[in-house]
């Protein structure tokens, strides 16, 4: 068991007739350890108790984590399958009736069969998510390709982690979210955090972040807003949204100019330095400052600190990734570590703060349109052969690559895709350009949705299948470190709800594909098949058995066999995953945001999270404590900007872009740039900021540019201060 300086042996309180079930949180990539309190008389989850011995978080939790257990027996849980016969009610909560599983399965099999008969195999699609176990993610990929036989499967990681994946693959040849374990974070000498509101989105990292400063180390934060983590930074690089690539190039230039490049590391372990050096020459502090809006002195100071630091970690999140150059931003910030050689050893490296609970594992095991389990390319014949063998199909039967998440909605709109099986995601809130996306969902001939609450997206479904919450099933997830961990079952499923993997097995049987699925009777059965299917891939989980995960407090992938203890630190041998073993330093020309401000739309709109909500809010908006703390969205405006528009704190205004409009209450704060406004994205219906965001996709990751578009404010006649 790893123990760092924060570890303390603590007892837990155990009340009479109670059992503690150790598990992890249902929400973000931190996957904080927790104990669920279960009443042994009723066998129901009744509360939470800190899990002090979890080495990453030591019992710490954010308010979402503390109240996560309240999802399980929540009054809003879906307890039976629902069918809606009147398609004209799509997009509303109305018209659903309770049905038996038999009837629901029969209807799905019939409709899916009709559509595929009429319009071909690929008229069906699967849109999934990564807030679920590796086992479920794995089986969803298999279900789409084997049971439904469609090429069209993709997932909500395209709105979350795909740019980090693309950038890491290009720079390192492998996409493991962090090159080092989180227990290194507080021991480094400099944290360079770009586009991460760490304090609100990954709060349980914060004691390690502050500990760097406590030791005399430095904290540098790049963010358009003075977030709670930026507030205490040694340098706050308050850049314009969408200008990260210029900032990274500018800092890289200074690092090279000021002699911080590690030539021996560059020569032995990387490619691409010379052309990158040439390209970033143009990014003088003056030019960088002009593009980014960050003061020259701050850029110089940040480069100086990072350059001097014996060890440093570059960290980033959706702020830099949710741009139409997100992949370039990731590679550009990664360049800093590669040219200074601050990587491939403890306490130095690169990490992304994974957004969703299983954002790491879920993107590795075959939910992505072009990937098979173990991060194997579906275009690689050998991989197809390996996986086909595990699945019991002929390699020719393996569908071809599909398209990315947002592109699937375009295919729904033009009727190429006519049927959808949606699970573990709420794109009617979380996708960009929502007027279009909601319209596309409405056009579907037939839609099935698996969820445990009736989400805004479920409102478009013909059939809703009640799934279980995370606490009513078991399996593994992979946290933001790349550590595979175990989620344990604390309660039997309520009502008639079922785990998604079980629905898929039963549905596959209805679709005549039982022979590929019927042997999977438990989550453990799925896990065993999944480990085998990942074998030989880059993300090899073959050696990560549930027993090993328990014994070692998790297993870092890659973990190839029984003896392999896993890989907490990547690249210790300075071998990267490109064929020549070298990392790639990337020369990346700057591009502005897809939609720059103009006279008509002079403001930069950026979006993000608050600490009280998770993703589309389908879960957290139902938890009373969290909803009390943040019941509605708002727009953050700088007081100088507010004065220009003649608007006041708490006044309702109209915010609009070329794509949509919303009414929001104004929240005045000096902790944001004057040219930028911010709205949290957790809200549905007419409150969704994604009605306004732009679907400009990164050419490689297909990540939409949630973080920057041009907007305008209009004062309302009726917008009186409440």
């Amino acid at each position: 068991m790893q123990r760092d300086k924060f570890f303390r042996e603590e007892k837990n309180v155990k009340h009479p007739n109670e059992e503690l079930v150790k598990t992890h949180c249902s929400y973000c990539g931190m996957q904080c350890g927790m104990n669920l309190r279960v009443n042994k008389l009723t066998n129901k989850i009744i509360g939470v108790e800190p899990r002090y011995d979890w080495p990453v978080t030591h019992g710490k939790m954010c308010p979402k984590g503390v109240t996560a257990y309240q999802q399980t027996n929540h009054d809003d849980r879906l307890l039976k399958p629902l069918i809606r016969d009147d398609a004209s009610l799509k997009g509303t909560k109305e018209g659903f009736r309770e049905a038996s599983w038999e009837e629901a399965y029969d209807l799905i099999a019939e409709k899916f069969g009709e559509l595929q008969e009429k319009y071909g195999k690929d008229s069906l699609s699967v849109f999934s998510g990564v807030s679920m176990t590796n086992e479920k993610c794995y089986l969803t990929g298999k279900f789409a390709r084997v049971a439904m036989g469609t090429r069209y499967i993709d997932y909500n990681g395209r709105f979350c982690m795909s740019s980090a994946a693309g950038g890491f693959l290009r720079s390192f040849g492998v996409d493991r979210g962090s090159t080092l374990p989180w227990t290194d974070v507080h021991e480094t000498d400099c944290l360079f955090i770009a586009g991460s509101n760490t304090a609100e989105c990954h709060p349980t990292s914060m004691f390690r972040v502050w500990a760097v400063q406590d030791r005399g180390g430095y904290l540098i934060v790049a963010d358009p807003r003075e977030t709670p983590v930026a507030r205490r930074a040694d340098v706050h690089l308050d850049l314009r949204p969408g200008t990260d690539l210029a900032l990274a190039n500018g800092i890289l230039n200074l690092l090279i100019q000021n002699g911080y490049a590690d030539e021996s590391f560059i020569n032995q372990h990387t490619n691409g330095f010379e052309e990158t050096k040439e390209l970033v020459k143009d990014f003088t502090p003056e030019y960088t400052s002009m593009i980014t809006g960050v003061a020259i002195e701050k850029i110089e100071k940040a480069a100086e600190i990072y350059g001097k630091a014996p060890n440093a970690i570059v960290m980033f999140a959706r702020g830099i990734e949710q741009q139409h150059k997100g992949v370039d931003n990731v590679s550009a910030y990664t360049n800093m570590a590669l040219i200074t050689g601050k990587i491939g050893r403890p306490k130095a490296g690169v990490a992304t703060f994974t957004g969703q609970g299983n954002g790491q594992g879920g993107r590795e095991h075959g939910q992505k349109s072009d990937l098979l389990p173990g991060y194997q390319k579906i275009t690689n014949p050998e991989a197809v052969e390996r996986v086909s063998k595990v699945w019991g199909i002929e390699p020719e039967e393996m569908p071809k690559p599909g398209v990315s998440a947002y592109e699937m909605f375009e295919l729904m709109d033009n009727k190429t895709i006519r049927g959808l099986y949606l699970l573990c995601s709420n794109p009617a809130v979380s996708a960009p350009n929502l007027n279009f996306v909601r319209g596309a969902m409405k056009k579907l001939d037939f839609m099935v949705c698996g969820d445990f609450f009736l989400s805004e997206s479920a409102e478009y479904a013909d059939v809703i299948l009640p799934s279980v919450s995370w606490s009513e099933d078991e399996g593994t997830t992979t946290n933001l470190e790349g550590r595979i961990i175990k989620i344990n079952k604390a309660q039997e499923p309520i009502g008639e709800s079922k785990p998604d993997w079980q629905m898929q097995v039963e549905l596959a049987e209805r679709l005549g594909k039982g022979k590929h699925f019927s042997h999977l009777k438990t989550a453990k059965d799925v896990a065993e098949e999944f480990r085998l299917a990942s074998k030989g891939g880059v993300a090899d989980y073959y050696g990560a058995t549930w027993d090993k995960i328990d014994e070692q407090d998790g297993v870092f992938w890659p973990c190839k066999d029984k003896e392999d203890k896993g890989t907490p630190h990547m690249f210790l041998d300075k071998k990267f995953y490109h064929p020549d073993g070298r990392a790639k330093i990337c020369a990346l020309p700057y591009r502005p945001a897809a939609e720059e401000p103009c006279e008509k739309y002079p403001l930069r709109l950026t979006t993000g999270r608050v600490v009280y909500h998770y993703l589309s809010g389908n879960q957290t908006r139902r938890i009373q404590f969290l909803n009390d703390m943040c019941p509605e969205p708002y727009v953050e405006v700088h007081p100088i900007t507010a004065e220009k528009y003649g608007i006041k704190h708490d006044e309702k205004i109209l915010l609009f872009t070329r794509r949509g409009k919303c009414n929001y209450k104004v929240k005045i704060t000096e902790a944001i740039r004057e040219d930028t406004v911010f709205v949290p994205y957790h809200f549905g219906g007419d409150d969704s900021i994604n009605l306004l965001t732009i679907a400009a996709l990164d050419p490689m990751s297909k990540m939409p540019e949630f973080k920057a578009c041009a907007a305008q404010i209009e004062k309302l006649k009726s917008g009186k201060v409440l």
Partner: protein
Amino acid sequence: MTTTKRKLYMELENCIGCRACLAACTQCGGHEERNRNYVYDVNPLVNRQTMPLMCLHCVDPACARSCPAQAIQIHETGAVLSALVEKCIGCQNCTIACPYGIPKFDEEENLMYKCDLCIDRTKDDIPPMCASVCPSHTLQWLSEDEINQKKQKHELDNDKWVTSLPHLEGDTHVTVNLPGILQGTTKLF
């Protein structure tokens, strides 16, 4: 397990305003799912600085001194407990007496409630819920030794300005009266 008796320790600068301490407070068995600690936005229109407002468990607590019914007991660990249900008369003296505004009043139950430092945990030296979950180390449960180490960090003999001598907290220059300022007043007519 440290054998030294530990204390609640606060580093206000660390606070990120996540209010996990409030959520956690509701989870303590004895707290009827209601938080007994508070977090304030220090200057909400300007920046994101926040700070927790916790019961400081005074050595000579005004709340207990102001209670005419001896309903507020001090535990042997030093924790100033919430009012005893059977003794509290609902007079609300304590809610006025406490200079930090910690005791609150439940109209329905006619009962005062306040932080009891999760006494069912801390009596066995298990950290209270707020300090257990606090993700930013604003709230910690530390031994005397650990607190002394923290103090030493402030004892710098380097001619630099140090903000907090003597350390961490101290006596105040403000005198706070207990409720009852009119007790000695005779009505004019």
